[in-house]
């Protein structure tokens, strides 16, 4: 067994010990919540709660996934937090019923966005948190330890944290969804619900064979 395997084994035994001593403190991730996006709901049962999901790839696809989530928020009556690291959310393009469900947090830099997410996770009032890092240049400045901290925090709750990014950045994401381009310019005349139905995406879950880890920078 190599060093990392040994470390993993020791961590597992430590986790088991904590779980045994403090059963009420441990919430097992893995509950899934449908978000109204058929390609995702049918293939994986929805988004994982108590876990971090990363959505990478096309920005138009990520926006349509957000549209699906907001549609479900209107239907089910829950609210979600959108931490917008590039201040790019455009309210004019969204129905007012969906806007009423969003807490929009505008940040100028990823560091502040991460801090805002931290506040909202600890608050625990919003069941879905979306951290939009698409189009942010300093995305690599977010240290890997931040993502591990977020994993531990959301594990203790029923919150689904969704990170939108252009390329994989979240270390150890429980689920990674790669969305493909949602269409061409003519798509602006199509109903958004139809575009969501036609979304092409690949889903990778932790433990599955083809899990894509973010690129690591070598020193």
């Amino acid at each position, binding site marked *: 067994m190599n060093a990392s395997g040994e470390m993993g084994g020791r961590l597992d035994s430590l986790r088991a010990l904590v779980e045994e001593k403090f059963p009420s403190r441990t919430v097992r991730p893995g509950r899934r919540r449908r978000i109204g996006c058929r390609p995702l709901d049918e293939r994986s049962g929805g988004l994982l709660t108590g876990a971090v999901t990363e959505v990478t790839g*096309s*920005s*138009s696809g990520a*926006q*349509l996934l*957000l*549209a699906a989530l907001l*549609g479900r928020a*209107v*239907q*089910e*009556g829950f*609210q979600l937090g959108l931490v917008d690291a590039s*201040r*790019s*959310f*455009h*309210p*004019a*393009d*969204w*129905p*007012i*019923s*969906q*806007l*009423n*469900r*969003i*807490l*929009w*947090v*505008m*940040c100028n830099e990823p560091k*502040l966005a991460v*801090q*805002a997410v931290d*506040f*909202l996770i600890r*608050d*625990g*009032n*919003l069941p879905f948190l979306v951290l939009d890092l*698409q*189009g942010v240049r300093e995305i690599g400045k977010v240290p890997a330890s931040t993502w591990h901290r977020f994993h531990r925090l959301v594990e203790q709750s029923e919150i689904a944290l969704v990170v939108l990014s*252009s390329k994989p950045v979240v270390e150890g994401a429980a689920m990674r969804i790669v969305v493909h*381009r*949602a*269409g*061409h*310019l*003519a*798509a*602006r*005349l*199509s*109903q*958004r*619900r139809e*575009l969501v139905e036609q979304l092409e995406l690949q889903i990778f879950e932790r433990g599955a064979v083809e899990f894509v880890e973010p690129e690591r920078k070598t020193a």
Partner: protein
Amino acid sequence: MFACLLLPQFRLAAALRWRDCHGPAAVVDDHAKGLLLEVNEAAAAKNIHPGLTPAQAMARDLRVHILPRSPAQEEVLNHILLDRALGLSPDVEATSPGLCVADLRRRPKPPSWHGLGDEVVARFAAEKLRASVAFAPTPDLALLAAKGTGSVAVVYDASAFAGSLPVGALELSSPLAGTLRAWGITTIGQWLALPRADMIERLGSEAAAVLQKVSGRSKRPLRLIRPTVPYTEAFDFEHEVNTTEPLLFLLRRFLGSLTERLQAGHRVARCLQLGIPLDDGSTYGRSFTIPAPTSDLDVLFRILDTHLSSLRLEQRPVGLRLEIEAGEQNGNQLGLFESALRDVNGFGETLARLKALLGEGSVGVPGKLDTFRPDAFALAPMFPPDAAVLREEPAYGIPLRRCRPPIFVTVETKAGIPVRLDSNFARGTVVETAGPFRLSGDWWDEQRWRTEEWDVELDGGAMLRLSRSGAEWKVEGAYELC
């Protein structure tokens, strides 16, 4: 019965409130030749009495605390007094500063008047205030009884009570007081024993009015107040303060007193108004709406604490004001499909922290404005209460990601149509266009605007929204990033 609530040495009590002041103390009025107005027992024991100058008082005892009057605190004490009186009866007269009378004839008789009085005095004591409470068949007798007691007095027999009072307890004019003294009359009982008609003929109308008052046979009508007592607290610092610590310390004590009053009236705080008078004469003001109205001290204090922890002022505070807008506590019945926030006040606090971190105007619930102006939006502080809209409105196309601020680009056109785009943000040949979409607005005033928008798709796959104003082209946003 009538109840009289009195705060003895009202001006001194107001000046001493929120101060740790032990030993002899006196309050001085700057507008009355700087003479002492009221002194405490420790000062009186040193032969310091009202009417002396501060220098004379200090000559008798150097340790005497000479305090200026505190109009803000006097107002607060009056509010507390009226609040307590309104807790006894809705019919209350604000007789004078530090003194009020409540008409208890409409309320059921308590098991014990003394017990009721002790309860009221204990409530004042909880706020570190000394009060006298008296119950009597007429307002004037209640007032006389309150002035003569240290805590609680109950007058059952009006003539027996009045008869035992010294003449000095009445505020008589000096000629009348002199005449009575010359006659050797020291108590009201002796005075009342004189033949009434002859005595009034000899002493005049003033004696008739006074005797009518103390006889217990006339009940003067009270000048009732409207029962709207503001929940306010205030304090003026002797010197400017440089840190938030004294402000937080006082705010906690303010809230302790105010929440107790709220709870006694079964009310909750809906809004907090914070005022900080500054050394340049201006006042910093801020209003906090409580997401889920409450009378919980810790919840209300956390809201103020979060705000003050990030507050930076150019001038130094010289005082502190806090007002609570109170309301009735009403239960919220949720709709069948509506899910409320788990901890609304906790969420409000998180929003305050986010605003402190990111600045005002960076956090909220987005909304639309009634205009076609590009990038116009509203930001509400909290989710709307009627958010349970089950029907989803139709939406079209891919949502735009806006560039804030827009990015200037070089665009090559052919017959007015963009054909090539060049910039650091995006570059390439335009393969598809939609537009132009000409927009304008506010033509009636100086803020009028006009723009021309194009949606373009580049050969590299990027889908952008461009705008043109004259010869200037900008990228307003992207449907698909490069």
